[in-house]
C-alpha cells in the first residue's frame, strides 16, 4: 500500500491577546492510501485545526505537508486549486455548512460548476442524480432545501458534495457527532462502503472513541496540540501506553450490563494552550507524574512496531 498523505512537524499557532496559542504543535503522521487515520482527543486539543491546516484551509505556522509524495507545503494558487480537487472535507454540522438558499441538487453540483468539470447542463444533471444515488438520497429530494431534511439526510448531502470531484483524500471532521445512533450507523456504513468502492483515504476526526475504533486503521491521540500516542487501532485499545490514553479509554461509559471496568478518574482539567511550558502538557493531571514530567518535554518514542508515545515513563506506567 502506498502512502498518500504525509505531515511532518506541522505547527499552527494563533496569535491571541495573551500570547501565542499552540493549537497544533509539532504533529507528524502519514496515511496510506485506502486507509483511515482516526484523530481523537478532548475538546480544544487541536483536531479541527490539524485537519484544516493539513488541507490548506489554514496557513501552517511551520512544518511540511506531502501529497502523493510531492511537497505541497507552499503551493501557489493554481496548484492549490488542483490539490483541492483531490482533498475534500466533511463537517460536523451539516446544517450550518450547507447553503440554506440552495436546493439539494445545486449544493451537490456546485463544486462541479466551480471546477467546470461538466460540459453540458445535461451532464451536470446526470452527475447530480448519480451522486445522490451513491449516497442513498432519493432523487425526489433534488429540489428540497436543507432545512426541510433531517440530520442524516443533510449529512448525506455533505458526503455527496465532498465526493463530487472524485477526490482521493477526505477529511471528516466529526461527521456523525450531531446524529442519533441509529442514523450515525447508516452514515458510518455509507462512508465505509464508499471507501472500499472508491479507494478513498480518510482522516477521521472525532471525540467518540467507539466510533473511532470502529472506523480507523490507525489512531492519533492528541492532547493540547500534541500527539501523545500514535498506533494501530488494535494495539492502542489492547495496550494503551500513555497514561492519558489509559484514562481516556477507561472513562468511556460502556452500554453493556456485564462489562466491568476499572476507572482511572483524573483530577483537574485540560490546561491552557497559550504559551505552554516546556514540560509534559498532561503532567498536571497525570496520576503517575514525577519531577521530570514538570521540567522536560517527553519525546515521541516507538515502543514497538509503529506504536509511538510521548511519555517519560512509556511502557512503565499502567493505571489500569
Amino acid at each position, binding site marked *: 500500500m502506498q502512502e498518500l498523505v504525509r505531515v511532518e512537524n506541522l505547527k499552527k499557532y494563533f496569535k491571541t491577546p495573551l500570547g501565542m496559542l499552540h493549537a497544533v504543535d509539532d504533529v507528524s503522521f502519514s496515511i496510506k492510501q485506502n486507509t483511515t487515520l482516526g484523530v481523537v482527543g478532548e475538546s480544544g486539543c487541536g483536531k479541527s485545526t490539524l485537519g484544516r491546516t493539513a488541507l490548506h484551509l489554514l496557513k501552517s505556522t511551520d512544518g511540511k505537508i506531502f501529497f502523493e509524495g510531492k511537497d505541497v507545503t507552499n503551493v501557489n494558487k493554481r496548484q492549490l486549486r488542483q490539490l483541492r480537487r483531490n482533498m475534500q472535507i466533511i463537517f460536523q454540522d451539516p446544517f450550518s455548512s450547507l447553503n440554506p438558499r440552495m436546493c439539494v441538487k445545486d449544493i451537490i453540483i456546485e463544486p462541479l460548476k466551480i471546477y467546470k468539470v461538466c460540459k453540458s447542463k445535461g451532464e451536470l444533471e446526470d452527475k447530480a442524480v448519480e451522486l445522490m444515488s451513491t449516497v442513498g438520497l432519493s432523487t425526489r429530494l433534488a429540489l428540497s432545501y436543507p432545512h426541510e431534511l433531517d440530520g442524516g439526510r443533510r449529512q448525506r448531502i455533505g458526503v455527496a458534495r465532498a465526493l463530487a470531484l472524485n477526490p482521493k483524500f477526505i477529511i471528516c471532521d466529526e461527521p456523525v457527532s450531531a446524529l442519533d445512533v441509529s442514523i450515525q*450507523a447508516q452514515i458510518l*456504513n455509507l462512508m465505509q462502503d464508499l471507501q472500499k468502492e472508491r479507494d478513498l483515504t480518510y482522516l477521521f476526526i472525532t471525540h467518540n*472513541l467507539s466510533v473511532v475504533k470502529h472506523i480507523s486503521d490507525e489512531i492519533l491521540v492528541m492532547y493540547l496540540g500534541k500527539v501523545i500516542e500514535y498506533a494501530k487501532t488494535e494495539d492502542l485499545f489492547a495496550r494503551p501506553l500513555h497514561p492519558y490514553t489509559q484514562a481516556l479509554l477507561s472513562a468511556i*461509559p460502556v*452500554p453493556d*450490563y*456485564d462489562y466491568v471496568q476499572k476507572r482511572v*478518574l483524573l483530577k483537574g482539567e485540560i490546561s491552557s494552550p497559550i504559551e505552554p511550558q516546556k514540560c509534559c502538557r498532561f503532567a498536571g493531571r497525570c496520576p503517575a507524574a514525577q519531577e521530570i514530567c514538570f521540567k522536560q518535554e517527553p519525546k515521541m518514542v516507538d515502543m514497538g512496531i509503529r506504536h509511538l508515545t510521548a511519555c517519560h515513563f512509556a511502557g512503565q506506567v499502567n493505571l489500569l
Partner: protein
Amino acid sequence: MEKLIEVKDLRIEFASGKKIVKAVNGVSFSLEKGKTIGLVGETGAGKTTTALGIMNLVPAPAGRIRGGEVLFKGEDLLTKTQQEMRQTRGNRISMIFQDPMTSLNPVFTVGDQIAEGLHLHTKLSALEATVKAQDMMERVGIPAARYNEYPHQFSGGMKQRVIIAIALACSPELLIADEPTTALDVTIQAQVLDMMRNIRNKLNTSMIMITHDLGVVKEICDQVAVMYAGQIIESGSLKQIYKNPQHPYTEGLFKSLPKINENTERLIPIKGIMPDPTNLPEGCSFASRCPIADKSCVNIRQLSKEIEKGHFIRCMKRS
C-alpha cells in the same frame, strides 16, 4: 417501597403554525425514593418535554398539557397554581436544564448563585446560605476559595458542577437532569457522574436522568424508560433492558452502536427516520422502521403490557 413520583398518561402538544406537534403521547412511569430512572431516546423523542411537563413548565401558549397526572407524594402537580409550583420547584424538585452553559448568570459570582436559591427556598439567613453554598462547592469538588469568581473564569466541567451544586443545594427530593454531561469530554463526564452518584447516595435523592447515551444510563441508573415518538415503548430495570431488550426499537438501538469491547465489521442501523410528530400513525409509530412489523401494527394502537415483573413494552408482536 414508597413511590415518590408517579406520572400517569401524560400528554403534551405544541401548536406549530396550523399543525399540532404531538410531543408526549401518554407517558406513564413511577419512581421510588432514592432511585434513578434513565429516560433515553433519540432527538425529538419527547424527553425534555416530559420533564417540563413534570415541572409544570411547558412553554405557553404554544405548548399545552392535554391530559394526565403528575403525582408527587400523592399530590397532583398539574393542578397546583403557579405560586404553589414555585415553592415546589427548587425546593423539593429541581431541574438541570439541557444546554446548561447558558443557565449561569455571567454577572454574579458562582458562590452567590448557589446561595441565592438557598436564601429563596429555605429559611436560612444570608450568612448561613453563604456557608451552605461553600459546603456545596466543596461537595462538587470546587474549592470554596473560588466562591467569588465569575462563571467565565470556570471551565465547562466546572460550570456544570456549579449547576449541579445549585440544583442540589436545597436538598430536593427529586432531581431532573436533562443531558447533564452531554457537552463534557469523557474524562470530565466520568468525574461529574462519579460526583453525582456520591451526592445522590449521601442525600438519598431520586433522579430522572435524561440522556441519549446508553453508556451513561448504565453508569448511574437503576431503571430505564426508552422513549420513541412521545411514548415510552419499553421500560424496566437496568438489567432487564440491557440484558433482555424486547422492543424492536430498543434492540435496534443497541445493535446500531459501535462497540468498544468487541469488534464489529459492519454496524446494523435502524432503517428510515422517526415519524413526523405532526402526523403520527394511528398504531405503532415505529412500524415503518420495524423489521418484524406487519400491516396490522400500523393501524392498531399499541398498549403497554407487562411481559415479566416490572418489564413493560408497547409491541403486540412481542407481548
